């Protein structure tokens, strides 16, 4: 393993120190490993809290700022934050209008956020609503799985719900928008290589040079199936078709198309993939209203990508275009 680290056990706190140094506009609670907007809590504004295991940067701390999250909790690598962190974040952003928890659907994340919400409600009258994202079409939503994973839609949701909260909308409306985004967005991912968890020191799985994993999540877990390596054109079909098969994306105001890098894939290839995704969508009669291309929700150093499509409408497009100013997503502000 070659990594730019000191001690594998210190990766998360040391990265947070760097984030704090690079972004003085944010406030980092090093004890609780929570990153907050410098001006939190904002009186009368719904607070948005997300969090999860580290290793997915820039998600979530890179999305803390104006028009997006108020706080992000950083767990250990690929391990959800503990309830105390979420409680600290919730208290830190509570401006009297309630707090929205944005939780990706993983057993650990859901349990830790639930326990945190129980603790907050036992100790204060802060209103907390949780929205759980579960947009990964690679997983069947059935009694026989932990349900679909929360992946790419989470990034779009944090932007869109963040814009709604910034407008001063009440908690119920912000939560409704968040739920609508999750209900109308779907994702599918693939990997060319595994990733290496610092504490483990070697790749999580072996993937021969001539094979790829289809239907991966964001934790280096193997995908649904392993297939021979194929050209980007075919990979785009393998990712987009299951999404379109799961949810009709035609008509309306088009989609927000998000091609996300898993951490080890250059932007050159992501743009190439975006062109292939657009071509598949055109053939299917799906228009693209907005797009996002880049590595926003990564799996450490994994090579590969995911595609997320979100069925848009006027309101969602307006919220998408609203100003955002965070370390990793910024426009119009």
């Amino acid at each position, binding site marked *: 393993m070659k990594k730019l680290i000191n001690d594998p056990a210190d990766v998360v706190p040391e990265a947070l120190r760097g984030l704090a140094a690079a972004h003085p506009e944010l406030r980092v609670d090093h004890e609780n490993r929570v990153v907050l907007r410098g001006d939190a809590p904002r009186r009368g504004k719904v607070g948005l809290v997300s969090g999860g295991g580290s290793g997915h940067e820039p998600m979530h701390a890179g999305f803390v700022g104006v028009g997006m999250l108020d706080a992000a909790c950083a767990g*250990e690598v690929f391990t959800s934050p*503990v*309830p*105390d962190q979420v409680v600290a974040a919730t208290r830190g952003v509570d401006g009297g209008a309630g707090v929205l928890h944005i939780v990706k659907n993983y*057993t650990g994340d859901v*349990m830790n956020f639930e*326990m945190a919400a129980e603790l907050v409600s036992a100790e204060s009258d802060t209103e907390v609503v949780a929205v759980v994202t579960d947009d990964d079409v690679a997983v069947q939503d059935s009694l026989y799985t*932990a349900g679909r994973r929360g992946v790419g839609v989470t990034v779009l949701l944090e932007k869109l719900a963040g814009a709604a909260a910034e407008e001063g909308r009440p908690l119920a409306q912000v939560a409704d928008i968040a739920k609508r985004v999750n209900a109308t967005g779907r994702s599918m991912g693939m990997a060319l290589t595994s990733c290496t968890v610092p504490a*483990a020191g070697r790749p999580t799985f072996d993937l021969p040079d001539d094979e790829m994993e289809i239907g991966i999540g964001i934790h280096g877990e193997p995908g649904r199936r392993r297939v021979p390596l194929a050209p980007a054109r075919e990979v785009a079909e393998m990712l987009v078709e299951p999404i379109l098969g799961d949810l009709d994306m035609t008509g309306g105001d088009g989609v927000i198309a998000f091609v996300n890098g898993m951490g080890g894939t250059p932007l050159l290839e992501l743009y190439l993939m975006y062109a292939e995704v657009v071509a598949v969508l055109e053939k299917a009669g799906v228009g693209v209203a907005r797009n996002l291309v880049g590595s926003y929700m990564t799996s450490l150093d994994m090579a590969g990508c995911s595609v997320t499509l979100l069925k848009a409408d006027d309101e969602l497009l307006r919220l998408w275009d609203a100003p955002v100013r965070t370390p990793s997503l910024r426009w119009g502000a």
Partner: protein
Amino acid sequence: MTVVDAAALTAWVREFARLVHEQRDTLTQLDSAIGDADHGANLDRGMTAAVAALETTPSDDPAAVLKTVATTLIKTVGGASGPLYGTFFLRASGTLDGGDGAALAAALRAGYDGVVARGKAERGDKTMLDALGPACDALDEALAAGKALDEALGAAAEAAAQGRDATEPLVARKGRASYLGERSAGHVDPGAASATLLVEAAATALAGRG
């Protein structure tokens, strides 16, 4: 007769921490196959913290020992194993009443029920319950048959190990391994493996206590 006192439970916790540390890489390897390669590291971190907490705030109250372990795990582990093992010790602490084998068995059963409730899982889902459940059953049966506690815990450890091994062919229905579908078959569940260490630690730590 008091055999399950604070010192005995502390010894159990220390032995569990020792086993987790010793088998940290094995647990992580199991988790690499069907999960996310962090079970050994996370549980080792949590149990190391639990042992340290028991040294900082030792107690003569058996229930307090278990509660310290519970809150430390919930505070330090994260992921799914933090809330699940934390809930196990928390419920065991709340139920522990008395110092005999039956009291310990009732506490372990309450811990098991807590994990069922928190994880919304059941036996056969390829989780830690597949080791803990058979262990609780074997412990109850052995005590009901009049066996001494250490012998009964030995039977429980054996049942846990059998339950752990029986997870190998199963297709996971809960937790991260369930995302793999059929591909999760052919691997032992890492949670069942660490839960077996928990029961084996009890058998070792309480051996000779009658």
